[in-house]
């Protein structure tokens, strides 16, 4: 048994200072054995009661949970560098679970004159990020010193925001690709919802990581011409479209070049071919599959 602190009130229970019981009762043996530290038995011997521990927490000290699962989401974003610029591509779908709910959502956004942001994941979180970047831009404008954030700086900033939110156990549910020109050279950076950030010559989010990046690894060169880059991106989009259930045949391509700055294309569709043998008879080479 632990010695009771003398300030404990027999009327109010452990940890409370106060008056003693007016009519102290002898503890029964059952009560005495239950009366151990942490057992929530009042030391006065009155009937035990239970308190839901979660109700004792104030909402302020606990993380909010309403953004801990995504609702409306976008799928892959693909990005490659080429000679003199960067190119991004994504479809325009925002799914509600597995429902193709919103089919004209732009997921490639111009952030400033030399940077484009591409986002997969929760669309409302993307909108939050865009509002945040907008405020940042206005603040920068008010400084009126002719400086604006470069692609690399935006990438660093966003990676800090994403990592910070993950540490609050309230992540922004996105995979982001920041693309632009850094000192005239192509720059691509990616950050995801847990704050993993890295930079590469070609990048993809979501399913694109599995479907497009192998293609990029095989075919991408940093000195590709714009035509070659467009062809590669279109091919990768097509592969993603065939294999990714959460995608539609409505794409946009964004470019950042030194000469033309940021340009984002109108939505377009790709020609598709569904007569491939593997598509027509998908179980032909898979014995035992129905």
């Amino acid at each position, binding site marked *: 048994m632990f010695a009771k602190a003398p300030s404990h009130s027999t009327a109010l229970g452990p940890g409370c200072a106060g008056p003693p019981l007016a009519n102290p009762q002898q503890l029964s043996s059952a009560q005495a054995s239950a009366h151990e530290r942490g057992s929530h038995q009042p030391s006065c011997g009155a009937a035990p009661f239970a308190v839901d521990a979660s109700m004792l927490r104030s909402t302020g000290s606990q993380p909010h949970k309403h953004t801990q699962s995504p609702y409306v989401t976008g799928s892959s974003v693909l990005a490659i560098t080429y000679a003199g610029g960067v190119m991004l591509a994504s479809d325009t779908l925002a799914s509600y679970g597995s429902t193709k709910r919103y089919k004209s959502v732009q997921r490639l956004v111009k952030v400033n004159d030399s940077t484009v942001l591409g986002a997969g994941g929760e669309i409302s979180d993307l909108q939050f990020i865009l*509002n945040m970047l*907008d*405020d940042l831009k*206005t*603040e920068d*404008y*008010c400084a*009126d010193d002719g400086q604006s954030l470069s692609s690399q700086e935006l990438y660093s900033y966003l990676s800090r925001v994403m990592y910070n939110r993950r540490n609050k156990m309230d992540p922004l549910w996105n995979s982001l690709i920041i693309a632009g020109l850094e000192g005239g050279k192509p720059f691509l950076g990616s950050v995801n919802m847990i704050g993993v950030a890295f930079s590469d010559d070609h990048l993809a989010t979501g399913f694109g990581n599995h479907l497009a990046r192998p293609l990029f690894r095989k075919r991408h060169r940093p000195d590709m011409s714009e035509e070659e880059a467009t062809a590669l991106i279109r091919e990768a989009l097509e592969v993603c479209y065939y294999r990714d259930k959460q995608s539609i045949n409505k794409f946009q391509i964004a470019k950042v070049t030194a000469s033309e700055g940021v340009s984002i294309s109108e939505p377009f569709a790709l020609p598709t071919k569904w007569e491939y043998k593997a598509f027509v008879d998908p179980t032909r080479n898979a014995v035992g599959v129905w």
Partner: protein
Amino acid sequence: MSGIGTGYDLSVSTFSPDGRVFQTAYAQKAVDNGGTVVGIRCKDGVVLGVEKPVASKMLVGGSNRSTYPINQQTGMGIAGVSADGRQIVNRAMQEATQYKGFYGEVIPGYVLSERIASYVHLFNLYWYVRPFGAALLMASYDSEGPQLYLIEPGGTAHRYFGTAIGKGRQSAKTDIEKLKLTELSCRQGVVEVAKILHTVHDEEKPFELELAWICDESNKEFKRVPADLAAEAEQQAKAALDEDMDS
């Protein structure tokens, strides 16, 4: 001013028997003794011009800014105590950001002018604060078109076609009234503002001209007038002034 030495001018929370708040009037005086600030609303935008007295020859050119962007579509010119003015500018930035965050739209000019006026007015209500010794000309360009507002230390906000505050306000206002503001473009307006400020400044003391505008040419964003254009306007203003002297 009657009533000086009678004790009615010590606090902003006491009226004088003839119905005035002397501290507020003194704040207005601080503005009226400062450099002249001119604002005109032209057909395609607003031009602000500030006459900045150069306190020392050793001062780096362009220091002590007195026109500030609040957001892309709003800007302010400070007349009077510039440190007080900057406080108001900071508040205006906060109000603009708050409005944008809450309503998702850019704050309209009249809303911002009223919010700023309310803020300035607060400092005319309690004995433990003093009113701002600064007035602000605010230029904005929203869906309603270009607008010019004047916010004064007493907490008033008015919309103008053109107005002036500071030392040379009287003759500057007379000059502004002669302009055909509905026909004038901002490019011409810049020259007119430069002319007015050069005319109004009659002492031999050196001064710097700060010109800012928001118009179609500046992409509907509040910006300083491009250096080459400002220099040209100032040159034209000086030439016009010399011509007047000769005739």
